[in-house]
């Protein structure tokens, strides 16, 4: 991450706020990832299962691109608590989403509603 090391030099509050270059890099990567996700769905080139995997992977990658280039989260010690909060929240979301899907899937299977 050249962005992280370059922005560390001129920070004011101990928090980095990026540069024109890092915003442009993040923007270009995001545009490419977004266009790839829409193209994967609109071109119908892959089977539905593969397409779901591809767009999910693209979304996860783009989330991290946004977090690094736009939210300026980095590996510095100043942001240790930000990172802890972030990964705790992400973990909560994963437990909620996959927990709900698991429970409701089992419910519908056992209730023979499908």
């Amino acid at each position: 991450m050249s962005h992280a090391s370059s922005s560390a030099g001129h920070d004011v509050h101990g928090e980095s706020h990026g540069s024109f270059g890092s915003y442009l890099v993040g923007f270009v990567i995001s545009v490419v990832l977004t266009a790839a996700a829409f193209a994967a769905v609109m071109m119908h080139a892959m089977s539905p299962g593969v397409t779901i995997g591809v767009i999910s992977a693209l979304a996860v990658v783009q989330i991290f691109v946004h977090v690094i280039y736009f939210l300026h989260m980095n590996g510095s010690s100043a942001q240790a608590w930000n990172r802890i909060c972030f990964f705790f929240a992400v973990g909560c979301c994963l437990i909620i989403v996959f927990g709900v899907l698991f429970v409701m899937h089992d419910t519908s299977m056992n209730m023979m509603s499908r």
Partner: protein
Amino acid sequence: MAHEATMPPVAGGHDDHEHHESPVVFGFWVYLMTDCILFGTLFAAFATLRHQYAGGPSGKEIFELGGVALETAILLLSSITFGFGALAAHAQKKGAFLGWLGITFLLGLSFVGLELREFTHMIAEGNGPDRSAFLSAFFTLVATHGLHVSTGLIWILVVMVQSLGGGAGPPRVMSKLTCLSLFWHFLDIVWICVFTFVYLLSVI
């Protein structure tokens, strides 16, 4: 704005400022993480109900990907224009800051406008939130995101007006701007999940 050149030492007057960001910004970060969990629950509800059509239309029949792609492009563009505005603010360039924030506001406003047009179009065709569980979950999730964007728009206006007046001290304005910046970029991240897991996934 010559007096503002002395801002950095005033804002970070204590020696350990490199180890901790301002408590306001960190507190706001924690709020954003709770907001993340709010959206997580709404996504979980949508994932559970996405096939409960109750005889109504499926996502494939009513979603127009062209409009969604346009909304996505607008929101992504507004992220980078906001970023440039924040950079201008850090460089103490007031005119550029107001210009970039004005552009961001217009982009956000057109996003909300497009979303409202989509909603009214769907409701007019009888596919409102009361049509099926799928549509209830869809409207709740997407409208909650839209409500956040609308709040962000009001906030952008407030920050622009406050920086015009210059009544509040620069450090306070800057930490407010940092919070707003986090908020705005966070909403774009939520939108990544919306266009991927709501629109694209329903159309496959």
